[in-house]
């Protein structure tokens, strides 16, 4: 059974699922598998594993930084697949690969989708592939049982929200603000997000909806994801790592932050 669908099917009515983004190979190549397993232990329901790209034009400074570090660390697509394979030895947490199209294209779309499915990847989020361009990978993803998750933003029309819903599997990713990725003032985000999620709910009926961009605390998550099925955190995790790495306790600091995101203090 599809692992993404499984977690949404088993979600308790009031529960908000937590999806966590981490750049593969950041802060070092060796930690990524441990971080994923630790995230799961501390409340993560879904993992978005970032495939670093040299020119991440939809990302703010935080993820630009983690991508640069990972590339300098020598991350490759095959190393990312090895990481997923390793996680799968002990975990069934849904794993979504997230990144830009060019490294995927360079690897070869057929080869990429086959390999991803083989190692246990469940879905793909590719921010620079809007619906009108998803033909570049849609068929191959489908054949290999990989979900394609499209994004919608506050400036997405009702019509396009419906289109994103029809063309997505797993869930639809709601970008809470128009802008690049990065932690923001949670109050600012939650003020405008309610009306957006209301519109999302009216137009996206086939898939669950997850909200991301700008969440950095349990309270942010509760406010912003009030009417969504869950929330996504990325930049705040990278910022936390950046703050503590390579001190001896950096992983435990990170994990207690993760735990607090899902469960509060």
């Amino acid at each position, binding site marked *: 059974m599809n692992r993404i669908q499984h977690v949404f099917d088993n979600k308790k009515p009031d529960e908000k699922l937590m999806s966590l983004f981490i750049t593969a190979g950041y802060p070092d190549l060796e930690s990524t598998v441990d971080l994923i397993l630790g995230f799961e232990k501390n409340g993560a329901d879904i993992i978005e594993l970032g495939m670093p790209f040299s020119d991440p034009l939809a990302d703010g400074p935080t993820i630009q930084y983690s991508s640069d570090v990972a590339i300098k660390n020598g991350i490759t697509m095959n190393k990312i697949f090895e990481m997923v394979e390793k996680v799968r030895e002990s975990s069934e947490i849904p794993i979504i690969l997230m990144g830009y199209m060019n490294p995927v294209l360079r690897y070869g779309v057929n080869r990429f989708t086959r390999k991803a499915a083989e190692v246990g990847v469940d879905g793909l989020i590719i921010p620079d592939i*809007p619906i009108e361009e998803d033909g570049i990978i849609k068929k191959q993803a489908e054949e290999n049982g990989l979900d394609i998750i499209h994004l919608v933003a506050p400036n997405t029309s009702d019509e396009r929200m419906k289109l994103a819903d029809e063309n997505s599997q797993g869930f639809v990713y709601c970008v809470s603000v128009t802008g690049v990725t990065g932690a923001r003032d949670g109050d600012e985000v939650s003020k405008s997000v309610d009306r957006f999620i209301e519109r999302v709910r009216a137009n996206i009926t086939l898939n669950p909806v997850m909200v991301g961009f700008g969440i950095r605390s349990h309270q942010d998550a509760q406010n912003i994801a009030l009417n969504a099925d869950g929330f996504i955190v990325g930049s705040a995790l990278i910022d936390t790592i950046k703050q503590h790495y390579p001190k001896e306790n950096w992983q435990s600091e990170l994990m207690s932050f993760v735990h607090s995101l899902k469960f509060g203090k």
Partner: protein
Amino acid sequence: MSTQTKTKTYNYPDDRGYYGQFGGKFVPEILIPAIQELEAEFNKAKNDPVFNEELAGLLDEYVGRPTKLTYANRLTEHYGKAKIYLKREDLCHTGAHKINNAIGQVLLARRMGKKRIIAETGAGQHGVATATACAKFGLDCIVYMGEEDMVRQKLNVDRMRLMGAEVRSVTSGSRTLKDATNEAIRDWVTNVDTTFYIIGSVVGPHPYPMMVRHFHEVIGNEAKQQIHKVESRNPDYLLACVGGGSNAIGFFYPFIDDESVDIIGIEAAGFGVDSGKTAATMTKGTPGILHGSLSYLLQSDEGQIELAHSISAGLDYPGVGPEHAHLKDLGRVKYHAVTDEEAMNAVKLLSETEGIIPALETAHAFAWLEKLMPETSEDEIVMINLSGRGDKDMGTISEYIREENN
């Protein structure tokens, strides 16, 4: 006109913004409404007599069009082969062809009610052109420029600031045009409701490559009329430099269906195409997606974009417009590359023979004459797009000559 073969088969992009397998709109969902709105408005504007009349008026009175076609008699004598004509885009207001597009897009921005303009720039010519057009129309202007380019092209930074633009230094990545483009796109993603992004070359998501080509077609259209007036026929060769490829597309496009014209685009080889320090995207690149379109790219086996190198900031870009990629694959345009050194020699030759100091970008096209001219004959005609003047490059040129003499 009788020698021309008119086939009229070239009709790109298609409805999806593709030039064969290249092009498209590979942008985040947030930008889709903006590029859809832009495409609709551009299609209306280009068929609107009022818009076209205003644009034509500005090109005439403000930009100084039509630019001249100059017969380069001493350069012609130097090679002793085909006649060489120069299309003088260096005589445009601000010193390069870039103003054609900046004025066109600013008019479009005004029509769409956008008051905040952003742009990226490499050599600074597009930044200057955009700052100029914004000053003329009283619009806010923010230009993203790589930190390294700001040093190489300090004069242009000062020019932009003098005209009221804010120049934002980009310190990420290679600190050149590629990274300035990333930052401009991030700004656009964040301020999409209020902001119009004026892309400076035939790159980016559809409709940009098509729109920028449209605003530069005036170069080729004028050149065609002018050469017919003096020679009563098409040239045998067209030559232009290619970074992103805007001056080249504007110059080439009206001749694409004229099969008797050999069309040649010259890229920057930097230290040499196999030196690892090059910007020869079409010679060394492979297909990939950057800045919203699928085209040839300099990239690693892992699909990471590689740093380009050229002495010319305007050609220092690891991508190229998707239409050039298609024209290469069609075989309609032949692309070659020349080194920094060859370009610098061309700067000296044109300066000494014609009293014209070309921009370093433009000099790459002239450098190819060394290879091309021996193959031509005296009854043939070569027409070169002199896309910009070299005033902005005097620092780089002087330093190069000093080092050479040491």
